[in-house]
Structures are given as C-alpha cells and as structure tokens.
C-alpha cells in the first residue's frame, strides 16, 4: 500500500527534478487558447465608457445616439444619475456591437453629464490630504513594543531617513476580461482568472441565477499577480450585454483601462529612526509611514520587516485617494515594508562603518524562527556574488561609473489553500486528475501532473491533468503562494487513495496482500521485486468495466509555511547621466520540498525581474491638476526589457533541512527583496541614498546633488 507522506529523496522519480511545463508546447506554438482568444460563433465585441473625472456625480446618461450606431446590439448602463465615480477610468456604460471598431465608435457617442466633485488623486502625505478632507486620512495602526524612548537613549548610533515607493500597476499582459454566452438561463463564461472555482458565485449573484447555472472556464491565463480574483464590473457587464443581445459577448479591457483600474499596488512612504549599539546590535526602531491604495485601505505593512527590534514604535496611516483601487499585488505589503526596513538598516550599517553582510548576520537573532536559514542563505549568496571580494565601504568609488553592492532578506507564509482533487484510473490504464484550479503561468498544471505520476509510478505523459473548469472538484483561489501547497497535497492524497484501491484489486493475482505491493516504473509489483509484477495496463485491465475514482483534500502534514530568502544586487551607476545599470542579481531561495525544480527556478527568476522593474522603472504617474493618470500605456509605464536585467543567478535551497518541511509556496517571496537590494547597491555605489523608488535618473541626480539624500 502506498502512504500519503512524500517519498524519501532516494525514491523520488520525478519530484524535485527539472521538468518542462506541460502546457509549454501549446504556449510556444501559439495554440494555447486564452480568454482573449475565445471567438464564439455570432460573438459581439464590447467596449466601455469610462469616467474622465477622478470624482464626480453623474447627472445624466444618454445612450440614445449610441444605440442607433451601426452594428450596436446592446447597451448596458452601469452607473446612472445620482451615482458617483471615484476614479478616472471607472466604468459607466458598456456597449456591444458586431465589431470592435463599431463598439468603440458607439461608446464615444454615449453622453454622460458629470458634476465634478473635489478630489485627491496624488500620492501626498496625510497632513496634505487632510486639507482636502478629514475623511481622506485613516490611522490604521499604532503599535509600541518594549520602551522605544529608552531604546533610543541606549543606542550609540541613531540613523533617521525617509524612504518610499510609489503606486505601481499589475499590468498583466492578458488584460482582464470575459467572454459570456447564455444558453437559456445557463451562463457560460470564459474568464482570465485566478479563481476558477470561486468566481462563478459572483456571476450568479450579480445576474440573479443559481450558482449551479454558471460554467466557468480558464484553460490558460495571461498573468494575474493578485489582480484577477473577481468577476469584476466588466465581467458582469459582459454577461448582461450577452443576455440583452442574445449573443455571446467578448469584453477585454483596453490597455489604458487595464492600467487605470484593473490593479495597482499601494504606495508606502515614511520616516524611519533606527538605533544600534556600537557593535551593531539593533536596539530601537521608530517609523511613521503612510501610503495610498486609492479609495480603499489595503492592510498594514509589517514594519519593521523580519527583524523584531526589541523597542519599537510603529505608526501607519492610509491616505484615501481618487486613484483606481489597489488589488493584491504579488506579496501584498511585503516589498514596501522590505524596502523601508532594509534601506534604513543598510544606512545604519553605513553609519556604523559596518559591512551590511556582517550587520545582518549579527542581528539574525532578531529574525525569528528562520534565523538559521537566513544565515545559510546569506553565506551562500555572498559566495555566489563574491561579496567579500567585491564589497567596498559606501562612497569609496569616485569615478563617473560607480559600482556598488546591496543585499536584502525577505519572508512569506505560503501554506496551502483548500483543495479537492479527483483521480480516475480507467480500465484501459489511462489516468486523469481533475481540480477546479488554475495555472497563472506558475507551473500549477505541471506540479499536479508530477505528483500524480510520482504517486502512481507512471511517466508524466501517462497522466492527464484537467484544471481550469469549475465543474472539477473545487480548489481555492491562487493567491498568497497557496496554490502549490493546496494542489500538491490534495493530488497526493487522491492519487494515493486511487492507487490503494487498485492495489487491493490486483493483490490476489500477485498472491500477496495489498500492503506488500507498490507502483513503480509503470508496474504494480511486490515491494522490491520487479519479477513478481503486472504492467500498469495489465493491472488496470482487472478493473473490468468500472474505473476507480478517488477524491483527496488538502493535507497539512504534506505542506508548510514560512519561506525565507536572500538577494544581493550589483549595480553600476553613471553619475553623469544618473542611469542605474543592474549587473547581477543573486537570489538564494528556500521553499521546502520542491516539486519541479525547473518551474520553481522560473518563479524566482520572474520574481527578481518583476522586482527589477519596480526598483528601476515602474510608477503610476498621476496629474494633480486633472486627477488623471499620465501613463496608462506601455510606452510610459515602463517595464524592463530583456537587455535591462543584467545576469540573474538563482540558487534553490534543497535537501536535508529543507525537503522534510514539506511543500511551501514560492510565488511571492522572490519579488519582495529586489527593490531593497538594488536601492542598497545604489547607495553603496554613490555614497548617498536615493530615498524613493523607482531609481530613475532624475532621482539619482537629485540625490547626488544633495537634494533629498537621506545619508
């Protein structure tokens, strides 16, 4: 009989190997069908009318001219007279027509009369925001640990600085959107979503139909990063238009709308004071931070990050603005807290004339239960970066081109979301595993296949993985690095149970109890004895006409939480142009037991590159006068290209000490540290801190000129 626990290292056939993603060939040949690619017979195209005002009350909506436009088949008003818009880019009316061009023409003919209202769309400090209205400012937390005043009094060195990072966007390459098609009172939706099993309920509620009437499909999706959990206004609009027109409707957001309203990350800015004894021991922390998530609040940054400084006073205030609302952005609140903390600590180390590597190692006792992991990872990263050979004290470089090193550490929970898997073994030997899960590009489909094949002793291609459909057993939304823990454990349980049923059925033929059988190398055999075996096909043939079906749920004994991780950056800064060039980024990452080393490494490369993007380029720029976003497009909302990322070195911590923790999610951790590591490298190169990300030439030159430098 097979056991639910993970196989020991020596017995793993597939788990932990470098395996290519199962959907790779569909994607690399252009055959993968995303929501954006679904073209249904008779399908209409929908476009949205967006508010040009950041805050306004709607006086009147006139769709009569739009309705008469060529090709128009349905118009749906989302916000009517008396209702308010709260950001420029909020949806007011949806129009469906025969072609995209006709839908766009018709949307332009919708007349909306707005009464503009006072607004605040800029990322300003609370004092300034309060002048617009007291309700613009909300103190979210005030926490005191130990005795901060005594802590600072006992510190030999105190550093104070300002740090921050702006609102940025998710900018998924596949825009948010839905194709909706009705069959009587049953709704079929294709939606680019991180929440295949959960999103149907929102359509049901919004359209007043039973949840059982909503069929959701998402075979592949073009990026989510935390922004695609919901049906969204536009998803419901697509379904409403389709019902009105009696035709399928495709509604994918235009790129400007995607960047205005479909997902952003809250800003964080603030003042930090931090104190240490002469030997580098951290003794006191004080931070006063603020940030905006648009018209909502989005949690409290975990400050000070990782290091539990014994005496601390921490205050955070949310500023409510008329920007599109923030959504969970890969590792919510962590990249911000990481930048503010790691930059302040790096500046403190510089004041102490300490190598930050020594400073971080010295204070690891404050890093909690993962201190020993951080130590191991810091030393490994230092080796890969050649830190001890390359590092120089801050400001030692004097030329035009200045080289610098910086480091940062991070953490994330993970664990696993609730998950159900159904494994079917057919009499002809074919196998399928089905989960109402989704693959965001992380490798979920492949991980499921690997676990199933490993359990059944089959090659990967012998297992069919079915995900992306809400008719499969429900699986949680993919957020917070919880997917791999959920799906790997439920799949392990379901496939083990199915296998054990099979073993019971074939035990008589092999003349031993099922407890002495195992599945290995495509055979069912007496444990350790391939001579007494049946091929997988022969074994399954004994099932007669009825397949085996077994279900499995998330199993906490197979998974864990709490990844650490260390990153080190090397940059060259041109002090004449202010351009920062990333030379090398080293990422050392643990995540417990790795199922697929290849896609795991890709998660880390990807996290590093998203981190480089927000460290050097990304910012949602708002115009304070009109309250509109100035860069809702990909020319001026900058992302790194293939030539902008230097060389990235990834090292995964595996083996004894790591594997036995079980599976831990990996999506969030590697995106947390790059901003801090790169900012610290730039400070090391220049001798001054560039206090705010992104590290654009203007900010670098301003810091060099002594305007706004923190050290």
């Amino acid at each position, binding site marked *: 009989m097979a056991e639910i626990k993970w196989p020991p290292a020596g017995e793993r056939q597939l788990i932990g190997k470098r395996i290519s993603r199962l959907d790779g060939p569909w994607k690399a*040949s252009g055959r993968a*069908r995303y929501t954006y690619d679904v073209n249904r017979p008779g399908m209409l195209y929908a476009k949205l009318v967006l508010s040009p005002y950041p805050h306004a009350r709607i006086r009147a909506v006139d769709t009569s001219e739009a309705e008469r436009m060529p090709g128009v088949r349905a118009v749906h008003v989302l916000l009517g007279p008396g209702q308010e818009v709260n950001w420029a880019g909020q949806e007011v009316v949806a129009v469906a027509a025969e072609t995209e*061009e006709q839908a766009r023409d018709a949307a332009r003919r919708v007349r909306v009369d707005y009464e503009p209202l006072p607004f605040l769309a800029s990322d300003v400090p609370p004092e300034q925001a309060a002048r617009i209205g007291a309700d613009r400012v909300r103190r979210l937390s005030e926490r005191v640990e130990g005795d901060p005043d005594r802590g600072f009094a006992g510190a030999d060195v105190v550093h104070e600085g300002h740090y921050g990072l702006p609102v940025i966007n998710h900018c998924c390459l596949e825009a948010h959107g839905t194709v909706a098609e009705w069959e009587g009172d049953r709704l079929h939706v294709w939606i680019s979503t991180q929440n295949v099993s959960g999103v149907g309920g929102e359509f049901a509620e919004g359209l007043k139909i039973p949840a059982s009437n909503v069929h959701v499909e998402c075979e592949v999706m073009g990026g989510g990063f935390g922004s695609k959990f919901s049906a969204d206004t536009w998803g419901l609009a697509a379904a409403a238009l389709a019902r009105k027109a009696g035709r399928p409707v495709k509604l*994918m957001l235009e790129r400007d709308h995607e960047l205005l309203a479909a997902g952003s990350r809250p800003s964080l800015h603030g003042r930090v004071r931090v104190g240490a004894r002469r030997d580098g021991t951290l003794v006191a922390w004080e931070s006063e931070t603020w940030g905006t998530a648009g018209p909502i609040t989005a949690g409290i940054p975990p400050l000070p990050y990782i290091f539990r400084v014994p005496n601390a006073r921490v205050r955070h205030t949310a500023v409510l603005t008329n920007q599109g609302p923030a959504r969970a952005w890969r590792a919510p609140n962590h990249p911000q807290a990481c930048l503010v903390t790691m930059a302040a600590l790096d500046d403190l180390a510089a004041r102490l004339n300490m190598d930050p590597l020594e400073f971080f190692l010295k204070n690891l006792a404050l890093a909690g239960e993962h201190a020993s992991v951080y130590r191991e990872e810091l030393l490994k990263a230092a080796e890969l970066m050649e830190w001890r050979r390359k590092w120089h004290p801050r400001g030692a470089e004097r030329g035009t081109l200045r080289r610098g090193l910086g480091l940062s550490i991070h953490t994330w929970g993970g664990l696993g979301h609730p998950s159900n898997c159904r494994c079917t073994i057919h009499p002809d030997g074919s196998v399928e595993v089905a989960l109402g899960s989704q693959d965001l590009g992380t490798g979920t489909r492949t991980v499921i296949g690997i676990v199933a094949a490993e359990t059944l002793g089959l090659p990967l291609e012998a297992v069919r993985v079915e995900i992306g459909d809400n008719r499969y057993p429900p699986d949680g939304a993919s957020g917070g690095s919880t997917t791999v823990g959920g799906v790997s454990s439920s799949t392990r349980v379901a496939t083990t149970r199915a296998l054990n049923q099979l073993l019971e059925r074939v035990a008589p033929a092999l003349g031993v109890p099922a407890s002495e059988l195992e599945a290995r190398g495509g055979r069912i055999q007496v444990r350790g004895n391939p001579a007494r075996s049946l091929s997988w096909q022969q074994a399954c043939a004994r099932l007669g006409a009825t397949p085996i079906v077994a279900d499995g749920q998330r199993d906490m004994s197979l998974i864990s939480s709490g990844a650490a991780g260390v990153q080190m950056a090397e940059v060259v800064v041109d002090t004449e142009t202010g351009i920062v060039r990333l030379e090398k980024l080293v990422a050392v990452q643990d995540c417990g037991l790795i199922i697929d080393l290849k896609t795991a490494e890709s998660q880390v490369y990807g996290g590093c590159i998203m981190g480089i993007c927000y460290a050097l380029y990304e910012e949602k720029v708002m115009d304070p006068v009109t309250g509109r976003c100035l860069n809702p497009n990909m*020319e001026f909302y900058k992302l790194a290209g*293939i030539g902008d990322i230097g060389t*990235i070195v990834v090292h995964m911590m595996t083996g004894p000490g790591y594997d036995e923790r079980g599976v831990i999610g990996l999506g969030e951790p590697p995106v947390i540290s790059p901003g801090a590591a790169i900012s610290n490298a730039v400070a090391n190169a220049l001798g001054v801190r560039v206090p705010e990300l992104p590290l654009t030439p203007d900010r670098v030159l301003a810091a060099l000129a002594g305007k706004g430098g923190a050290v």
Partner: protein
Amino acid sequence: MPEEHKDNHEGERAESTGLSRREFLKGTGLAVSAGVLVGEGLLGVAAAERPAVVGPGPVPVTLRVNGQVHRLELEPRVTLLDALRNHLHLTGAKKVCDRGTCGACTVIVGGRPVYACTLLAIAAQGEPIETIEGLAPEGKLHPLSQAFVDNDAQQCGFCTPGFVMAAKAYLDRHPHPTEEEVRRALNGNICRCGTYMGVRRAVVEAALKRKGGQG
C-alpha cells in the same frame, strides 16, 4: 500619388490605402483653418489630384497568411492584428499594448518582424505574412518553440508567440548571435512574468542547434 510622398514610409503605404496619414492631416488642417466643412476640405479640394479614398465602410482585402490566401471585407481602419485575431481566428499573435510597444503581436511580413497592431490590414496586402501558427503544423513544434519549452522561456505565455516570431525573424538574418546580441535584438518585446533569462538561453540554443543541423 504626389511625388513628395514617394521617399517616405507613408508614401509607400498610400499606394494600397489610397489615403496616407500625412494627406489626411493636411486635409483636416485645411478644413479647420479655412473654417469650412470637413467634407469640402477633404473631398472638394483634393478629389481631382488623388486616388479614390477607400472606406470608411468595409472594402475587399486580400491577405496571404502562412501560404494561404484569404479574401476578407474589412473596414480600412482594421489593423493586421485585429484582422488575424477577429476575422481569421489566428489568435497566436496577442493584443497587449495595441500601440506598438510590447511586441506581443509580432508577426513576420515580407521577411521583417512587424508589430501587427501598428500595421493596417489593407497595408499588409501583397506581402507574405507569417504568424506563429505557420511555424509548424498543429501537434508539432518548430525547433525555436521547442527551445522555448526546454529552457522554460515562458510562464503565463502571453508574450511567448511574439518572442518566438521576433526571435525567428532575427535568427533568419543573424544565424549565429552571441547572447549579448540576443539581448539587444529582442529588446522590443516585453514579458511581465520575467522569463528573459530563459528566452536568452532558448534563442542561443536554437541558433547553435540550427548551426549544427546545417553542418
């Protein structure tokens, strides 16, 4: 066709569209400055000297895509990308930025990589158009696509077809690039998941294999 337009890009296009961007701007400019109706400005003044304006309604468009000839009726403003995706159901080229920035819609027109969102379908007539669907028959993988799979040069995969086509056009002209050259050559394509390290390896590996294959 006025002689002054012959030497620029718009002039080349004007032959097939019947209306270049510059002429259009001149026309509207005249209308506005003279304070007359747009119709008189555009049509009344210029009609005698210019070829007939096509559209705005659908016009016949013939596209040669992956060796197959397609006859369509499209409004002249329909981009090559929308013609491929919405009318020919060739959805391998992706719509992302829709304004010539990100490269996700890259196809090969007359041997050159082109952002299909920046080219009107009517202007793409007469030249062979190659999309990712044409690289290999369904169920088979082009060696370049295979290299993307092997090197995990994709995550969500939405940028991947554009990268594969940009890489193909590049390798067709530069069969033996260094990794440094690949970094420069493919800087016109944007990936959000962060697959660039894999893309570099994939393109260099595909080039080496092709070199080996050619002996």
